[in-house]
Each structure stands twice: as structure tokens, then as C-alpha cells.
């Protein structure tokens, strides 16, 4: 619109293109790392991964042969099932409805915040 008003149509001059590219470059250089910092290790992705694993689970259970119990590939064991294992810190007997609530043995105890909130391992150090 403004370009028509200004009578400036057609290809942009080189300095204008350079200016635009400069701004795009520095903003992109900040934006994408920021997105990755916030999301690649966030619990959101873990929740999605857990949900996907859960949806695949029935297909991958090895059919039980006669007299043998069914086996589940170890990599597909849901976190909620891990919580039921003897190695889990929480001796729960029922699967947690929220996979994020599961505390694995390697997780440090949550130093603050309400019970049930597990900090992201990539989250910045807590403010003392």
C-alpha cells in the first residue's frame, strides 16, 4: 500500500534488503534458541512422548505363549508402570493418572513448589 503511495515498486534496493535481512537474522538468532530452551526438554514434550508410547503399547506387547506371561519391551514401559516397579521411590500400587507426577529414582526431590510439580531438568537453577 505504502509502496504504491511512495511510488516505490519493484525490487528493493540492496541496502534495504540488507537491513531487513539483518533484522531477520538477529531476531531469528534469538527466537529459535529461546523456543528450544523453553520447549525441547519441557514436560510438555515428555507428556506427549508418554502419551504416544501409551497409545502404541497394545500393539507391541508380545503375544503370550501358552503358560508364559506376556512380556513388554523395556523401552516401551510407561512411566506410570515404572512407578509400580520395586525400583520406584513411590510405592504406589495404582498407576498415576498424570505421567508427570511420577518421580523416577534419578530425579532429585523437588526443593520447592507444591507437591506433584516436578521441575524440568533443563530448567534454570532455583533461586535461593
Amino acid at each position, binding site marked *: 500500500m505504502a509502496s504504491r503511495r511512495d511510488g516505490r515498486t519493484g525490487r528493493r534496493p540492496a541496502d*534495504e534488503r540488507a537491513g531487513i535481512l539483518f533484522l*531477520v537474522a538477529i531476531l531469528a538468532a534469538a*527466537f529459535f534458541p529461546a523456543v528450544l530452551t523453553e520447549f525441547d526438554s*519441557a514436560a*510438555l514434550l515428555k507428556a506427549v512422548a508418554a502419551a504416544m508410547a501409551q497409545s502404541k503399547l497394545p500393539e507391541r506387547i508380545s503375544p503370550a505363549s501358552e503358560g508364559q506371561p506376556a512380556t513388554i519391551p523395556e523401552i516401551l514401559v510407561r512411566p506410570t508402570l515404572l512407578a509400580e516397579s520395586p525400583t520406584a521411590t513411590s510405592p504406589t500400587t495404582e498407576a498415576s493418572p498424570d505421567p508427570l507426577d511420577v518421580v523416577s529414582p534419578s530425579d532429585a526431590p523437588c526443593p520447592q513448589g*507444591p507437591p506433584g*510439580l516436578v521441575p*524440568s531438568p533443563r530448567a*534454570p537453577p532455583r533461586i535461593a
Partner: protein
Amino acid sequence: MPIDTGSTGFMLIATALVMFMTPGLAFFYGGLVGRKNVLTIMFQSFISLGITTVIWFICGYSLCFSGSLGHGDFAGIVGNLDMAFFRGVDLMGPSPMNPGVPVMVFVAYQMMFAIITPALITGAFANRVRFPAYLLFLVAWLILVYFPLVHMVWGGGILAAWGVHDFAGGIVVHTSAGFAAFASVLYVGKRRASDKGLHSLPLVALGTAILWFGWYGFNAGSEFGVDRITGLAFLNTDLAASFAGPTWLLLDWIFTRKPRFLGFLTGCVAGLATITPCAGFVSTPSAVIIGILASCACYLAVHLKNKAGLDDALDVFGVHGVGGFLGTVLLGVFGTAAMTLPGRDPSLLASGLVDGHADLLVKQSAAALGTAAYAFCFTLFMLWAINKVTKVRVSEKEELAGLDMIEHGEEAYV
């Protein structure tokens, strides 16, 4: 409890910073309008310093902060009159948010928010509204829209009880003012005069600088004390504005082929409005993302508004309404329990999608939508009712002559 001198000193400075934003807004808007309407719009901001303080003393503070849901307020929507005329605001009283800070500092700080919020709306109906009608609007809007929203979000009302978060006013200040501005534009219609502005970009730049400066008090001060979250809110405020400005500049450069100064300034304000509800709840990388998204969303909103032929003179809806709304929703995405202090009340945690919790996003979105609808409907109704008492819009002849001389008998430039 002994007084926390550090926090009290900081809060007094933050209060003064927020007060300074209203004159800053007057300069910002003053530069954006035409030469014959500068004083009118600046006066509409400045008058709020006086009138709002009077209303705050009479009943405003009480309607915002006396009673809470199920404890003496009106259905969790608005407080009662127990503290009218500052009854119970004692010399030795602690503030509700930080017992180490005197209650009088809290009263003053919140009053500055009440002063600037209705002044934000004036940019939408610049050059068109009569002064007596504006005075009625100012008082009615505070009582019917602003005070209930403060009570619902910060005064222990229904939104607070539901778990909605608003660090410094994304819902209470920006969404409410922005959607009230939208209603005002629809009610008063387009400008007819040629003296539309902009008449002084340096004045706009000065206003933006003052607003940005004051915004540190607005956001960092909303922690209501000096701790690590205060620093986080301060830095996030600056980051969002600093990323939003170049983003708007880039969009302007691409779409209008000019790197416009006004675009940069507008982008900064959009970033500031959008980070407001999130400032003390999100990490610094999130503030960067929020700043960039703020400019993209607000730029699009302003473009669509222009295409729709709506005469939101100074883009109050596009910048404050859309920015405040977006920030409120994005808190549901980027709010994280990692950005909190040890031992803090769990009800003060804002834990969103990045922590794997979707419920905050739902609550924030619902609150933003509800606030937008509430502010829009009440503003429209109010303008209709005020028009029954006194004419809201100036005549075409008055508009052509300029409101400075017609309404106030003064001129900015002689």
C-alpha cells in the same frame, strides 16, 4: 512486624514511576493527534490524576480490596464499602501482599494503576468526545468496570479463587482498556476532520520513553517488595519491549518499505503491554518469545483494524487490547514453577504448558475472553447511557475547529 525499609523504599519509587506513566501517556497521545487537539487529549490523561484519586478515596480502594469471595464482598465480583474514605487504612497497618510494607504504600501504588487505566482508553476516541461526557465516562468506567476487575483478579474475587494469574495488569489494565476502547470506537464512529495527526513524533518518542521508564515500576513493583522475582520482572519487561520494537520495525520495513520510527515506538509499547501479565512468572527466553509474538499479533490487529475501517485513532485496541489479551493467554503457555521463590504460597504459582499443565492455559484464556466481553459490553452500555444525559460526541463544526479551542479555550501552539 517491623517495616521492611528496602521494600518500602522501592515501592515508593515504583509508585512514583507508575504515576509518571500517566503524563508519559499524555505526551505519547499528544504527539499522535493533530495540532488542534493536543491539549484535549493530554488533559484527558492528566485529569485522571485528580478525578480518579478522588474516587479512589471515596470508594475505589474499598470496592477493590475490602472483602473477598464468600467473605463480605458481592459474589466475588466487587468488594464492599467497609473501607470507604480509607476507613481502616491505619498508620501501622501492613499491606495485604507484603506485611513488611505499610498499607498506605499499597493504597497509593494501586491508585496509580487506577489512574492510568481509563486514560489509556482516551486514545481510541481522540478528537471526538466532549469533555463533560468524558468526565462522566471516567467515573462510571472506574466504578462499573475497573474496580470489579481489580477485585476479581487481585482482591480475592472469583477469578483469583479460580486460579487466574495476572502479574501486573494484563487482564485488569490492558485487556479491559483495550476492549473498552474498541467499544468506544464503535459507539462514537469515525473522525470527520482533517486534523487527524500525527503532529509531533518527538513528543511520541518522549512519551514512549517515559512509559517504558515507568513500566519498570509497573511490572517490577507488582512483586510488591524487593526479591529475586523483582529483578526477573524488571529484566523481562525490558527484554519484551526490546524484542518487540525491532520486530515491528522489521514488519514495517517489509510491508511499507520504510523502517519507521513510529513503528519501532509502537512495537515497544506492544511488547510492554504483552509482558505485563507474565513479567514475574516466566523465564527470560520466554520473555523474548513473548516480545516477538506481541509485535506480530499487534501489527496484524492494527492492519486488520485499518482494513475494517475502524477509527481507533491511536491504536489502543490493537496495541493494549490485543497485547494484554495475548499476554494473558501466553502466561498459560510460558508460566513456569521454576520461576518462583522457595516456600512461596502454592496458589501464587503460575505453571503452564511448559511445565506440562494445560489447566492454566484454559483458565487464562477464559479470563481474557470474559474480561474482554465484560469491558466491551459495559463500555458500550455506559456510553449509550451517558449520551442520554449529555451529548458524547462533538458536532462536525466543533470537530473541524479543533477541540482545544472549542472545549477548553486554549491552544497548544500560537
